[in-house]
């Protein structure tokens, strides 16, 4: 019987906060007026996410392992936990107005958002493969439903269906991988897998299946094909949350498994070339496909595939615990989650009742009608393109540097070339916004959505801060990787 004492409960705090929030939302919802905006739900959700933030900050420190080793509160998990909680918080802020416009201002929406957040935080802190599996599934099931939450929109339901079918398929692979690893070692605890005299062929086969499962969750080519469809179809606020949160949590678990269970030199030498291929393919396919898009959300989806590739560059060039690559990945994913969330917040802000604002051509002349939104969107896109002084530049710098330092020159070159090409499609919307005549359709009479503006402002500020003064965040990422043991 584990001692349900302070350590057990403490470690669980960041997960409990959104969970209790979800329950509170579900219990409050029936008592609210149907016709009025359901602001109390927003307050509850925000409050619980702030509590999660506080809990993450409270736990920041030495590694604490609890629940018979199932959960580890260490800097590694908490680092991206901050990204997840922030993404969720900003999504809630922007949802206050957006959910009403899309007709989903209901308890289910906020509770699913919070449950998904709880799943992501569990995933980020999971320390054995069973928790990894459950974390992924909790998160995924909530996100499948969120993707289809605007049920009247055929695209939304289609996105949910595609995401779900492929997700379930990939789950099979992930699970088989875990089974084979368990078969090879008799263990599911990550650090014990590493120390076990393993049955090598079976272990490697298991690793192969595992990479399929994780590759799917983070959207690496060739397991990426759900991403564009799901991103395009899902409502904008959900897409942003998906792009930021799912990827952050996925990478947290992915990296932890690779570093802890397969961090040995022999194992790393086995998986590095495989990930090399995934990274290269993701960068190339993602960048090329994004070039030809006319839908902003879809373009961002392809760009997220490319960004998965950039992050994988850091994983390949990780250099284990001693190297800087893994820390670079953490920093990269942190910045990525903010800069990919931003454009979706803007899309959510600009959307009108039941109608998404998603065509790139619709952006024409936006700078004159909505200068703040246009400026923020430009900043996000510049950061995605990796142009200084934004965070995206710093992230790319460290990732590519790590790869080149550890001898993966080819991957670094592919990355830099992909970045160069990507500038084209990131700049196109900016050019449209600032240099074309606006269309007549902009509706300026809507009341200003302050919550959404605030969320966008926070994201923009965070990007600039991370870009200009990245030292603390990078130092923390280095500590995080060192604190893994």
């Amino acid at each position, binding site marked *: 019987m584990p001692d349900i004492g302070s350590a057990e409960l403490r470690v669980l705090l960041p997960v409990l906060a959104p969970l209790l929030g979800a329950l509170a939302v579900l219990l409050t919802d029936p008592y609210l007026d149907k016709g009025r905006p359901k602001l109390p739900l927003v307050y509850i959700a925000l409050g619980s996410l702030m509590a999660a933030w506080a809990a993450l900050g409270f736990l920041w420190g030495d590694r604490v392992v609890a629940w*018979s080793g199932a959960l580890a509160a260490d800097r590694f998990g908490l680092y991206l936990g901050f990204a997840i909680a922030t993404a969720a918080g900003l999504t809630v802020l922007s949802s206050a107005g957006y959910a009403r416009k899309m007709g989903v201002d209901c308890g289910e929406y906020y509770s699913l958002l919070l449950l998904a957040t709880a799943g992501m935080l569990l995933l980020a802190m999971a320390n054995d493969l*069973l928790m990894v*599996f*459950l974390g992924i*599934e909790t998160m995924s*099931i909530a996100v*499948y*439903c969120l993707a*289809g939450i605007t*049920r009247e929109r*055929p*695209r939304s*339901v*289609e*996105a*949910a*269906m*595609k995401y*779900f*079918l492929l997700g*379930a*398929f990939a*789950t*099979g692979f992930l*699970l*088989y991988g*875990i*089974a*084979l690893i*368990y*078969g090879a070692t*008799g*263990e*599911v605890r990550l650090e014990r897998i590493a120390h076990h005299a393993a049955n090598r062929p079976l272990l490697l086969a298991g690793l192969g299946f595992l990479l399929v499962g994780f590759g799917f969750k983070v959207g690496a080519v060739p397991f990426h094909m759900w991403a*564009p*469809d799901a991103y*395009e*179809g899902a409502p904008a606020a959900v897409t942003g949350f998906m792009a930021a949160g799912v990827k952050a949590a996925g990478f947290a678990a992915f990296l932890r498994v690779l570093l802890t269970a397969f961090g040995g030199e022999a194992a790393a030498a086995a998986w590095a070339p495989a990930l090399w291929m995934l990274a290269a393919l993701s960068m190339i396919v993602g960048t090329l496909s994004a070039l*030809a*898009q006319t839908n902003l959300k*879809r373009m961002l989806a392809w760009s997220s595939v490319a960004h998965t590739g950039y992050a994988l560059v850091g994983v390949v060039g990780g250099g284990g615990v001693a190297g800087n690559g893994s820390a670079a990945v953490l920093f990269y994913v942190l910045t990525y989650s903010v800069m990919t969330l931003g454009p979706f917040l803007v899309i959510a802000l600009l959307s009108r009742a039941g109608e998404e604002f998603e065509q790139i051509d619709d952006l024409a002349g936006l700078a004159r009608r909505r200068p703040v939104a246009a400026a923020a969107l430009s900043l996000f896109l510049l950061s995605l393109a990796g142009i200084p002084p934004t965070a995206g530049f710093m992230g790319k710098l460290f990732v590519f540097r790590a790869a080149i330092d550890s001898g993966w020159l080819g991957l670094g070159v592919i990355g830099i070339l992909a970045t160069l090409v990507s500038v084209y499609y990131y700049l196109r919307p900016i050019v449209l916004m600032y240099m074309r005549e606006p269309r007549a359709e902009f509706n300026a009479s809507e009341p200003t959505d302050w919550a959404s503006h605030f969320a966008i402002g926070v994201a923009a500020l965070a990007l600039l801060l991370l870009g200009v003064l990245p030292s603390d965040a990078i130092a923390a990422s280095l500590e995080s990787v060192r604190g893994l043991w």
Partner: protein
Amino acid sequence: MFTLTNCLVLSALIFAVGAYGVIARRNILIMLMSVELMLNAVNLSFIAFARYYGSALAPASSGTTGQVFVLMTMVVAAAEVAVGLAILIALFRGRHSVDPGDLDLLKG
């Protein structure tokens, strides 16, 4: 022959059959069932490995882990099916088709 290896081989074959079902069939219901086949195949592997590693009754022993994992997988499978069928119903309401080939609004 009832051996560990044969159990694993059977598991691999069923997994492949399930994977075949997902990619070859054009009926979302059957695709979902195929996913269930895959998960069950994995369960078989888990139970077989649990049989191999089981030498103690302690909760922390290796054998126990495998069996517990299967229980968790069942919960997940049930939850997935529920969600999947709910999405299918929402989809069918608008489109009257269970053919994944008809899901063609999103592409490119």
